[in-house]
């Protein structure tokens, strides 16, 4: 008999939190932290490509086998949950904001808001489109040529290294990656600083440090992510000739694992 009122109280508190302007912004901030953390980890993993085929493919194999194969799914669901919650809360906030300012100034101007802060919804929507493309490109691997690549040193596993090199041979794909990552980093330069403001950590003493940190993380991610497609497109990163013959090897039963 005691449990039901407690559940109702918790439900009421959560609903009140969600319905309040600051509560919804806190959800955007907390999911934002998770997504930035994921991006930093993802970039660090990607950069293993510069260590060579073996290190990158070892890392990919580790991701797919950690916690007996459950680890990657736990991580994927966590990231997806944060991503979806971030989008739902943000879209709801934008709708409220547009309703709150239902008329525009005939002479509309901006005093100090940076461009990145004024295009957040558009950079965010571009990132959604990019994420969908990126998942079909390198995770689901709709292209059978990319899906069938095998590590020449270990034909039992997928050749992530060769797949990345092959995946960036199309200049249109590279251009889309450059645009999308640039929009993502514009989104982050405002978003990361906003996390601190929403969590109430911005003060007179931390103001400049927070702005610089947001800018630094955004630039690091921009360079880290884009170094790979740009170097592949310009010939700085090449696949060893052995891969193409390995990729056409006999079908492997472990293919479905990846």
């Amino acid at each position, binding site marked *: 008999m005691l449990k039901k009122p407690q559940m109702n109280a918790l439900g009421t508190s959560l609903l009140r939190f969600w319905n309040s302007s600051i509560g919804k*912004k806190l959800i955007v901030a907390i999911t934002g932290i998770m997504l930035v953390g994921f991006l930093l980890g993802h970039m660090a993993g990607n950069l293993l490509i510069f260590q060579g085929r073996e290190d990158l493919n070892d890392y990919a194999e580790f991701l797919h086998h950690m916690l007996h194969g459950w680890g990657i799914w736990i991580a994927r669901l966590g990231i997806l949950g944060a991503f979806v919650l971030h989008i739902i809360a943000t879209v709801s906030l934008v709708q*409220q904001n547009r*309703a709150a300012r239902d008329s525009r100034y005939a002479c509309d*101007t901006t*005093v100090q808001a940076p461009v990145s802060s004024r295009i957040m919804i558009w950079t965010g929507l571009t990132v959604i489109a990019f994420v969908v493309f990126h998942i079909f490109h390198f995770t689901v691997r709709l292209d059978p040529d990319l899906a069938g690549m095998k590590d020449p040193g270990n034909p039992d596993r997928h050749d992530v290294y060769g797949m990345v090199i092959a995946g960036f041979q199309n200049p249109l794909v590279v251009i889309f990656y450059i645009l999308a990552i640039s929009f993502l980093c514009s989104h982050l330069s405002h978003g990361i600083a906003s996390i*601190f403001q*929403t969590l109430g950590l911005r003060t007179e003493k931390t103001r400049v440090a927070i702005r610089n940190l947001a800018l630094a993380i955004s630039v690091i991610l921009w360079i880290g992510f884009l170094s790979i497609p740009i170097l592949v497109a310009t010939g700085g990163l090449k696949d060893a000739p052995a891969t193409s013959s390995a990729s056409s090897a006999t079908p492997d039963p472990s293919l479905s694992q990846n």
Partner: protein
Amino acid sequence: MNLTLKVWRQSGPTAHGRIETYEAKDIPAEASFLEMLDIVNTGIIEEGGEPIHFDHDCREGICGACSLAINGVPHSKEAGITTCQVHMRKFRDGETIWIEPFRARAFPVIKDLMVDRGAFDRIIAAGGYIDVRTGSAPEANSIPIGKEDADEAFDAATCIGCGACVAACKNASAMLFVGAKAAHLNILPQGHPEKDKRVLAMVRQMDAEGFGNCTNQYECEAVCPKEISADVISKLNRDYAAAIVREAVAE
């Protein structure tokens, strides 16, 4: 100096508004912006027209009554002043000036350039006070307050409630106003006992009035005539998060 004015005219709260053009001739450069409007209004009245309605009171930058978005910026692009402190010498002879009311759904237009800022009063009524016994003033030094706290509280307390923060915000958010009013009391020992209750009540009233959400662009602090920092918004966010957790635990 001679100027062209593009002024928002709206005959009533439900009427359809529009921009009308007026020629302001022979305006002395030393006139204030509101005196310039007085001169233009005198001309309109002499010609039998309806004068341009606008809010004003003290005309020395302390009451918060004057409003106006001048060329799209509340209280003009001059930093740290109210509309009544803007002088015509800041404009060029022959310039076209756009004059519009503060725009926000929570600040409905009453007439022309006058808007109803009663939503701010209702936010204050929800929690912008402390409960104390009335009577003679207490001895000033009976509650010691650190210099830094006193300064911080005083900076927040300089808010005159003009609404420029809302008018400048692309989302018509009132976070700078509510942040300032909550911080000014929350920082001081006299306001501390009711801190959580105050923050929750003021934020809920702010949301109920239909103000938008802060997206951290800080246009509000750029136009604030008292130059209140958006750090008070950060403090409000922090105080709200703590208050809502304590409220949930108490339930």
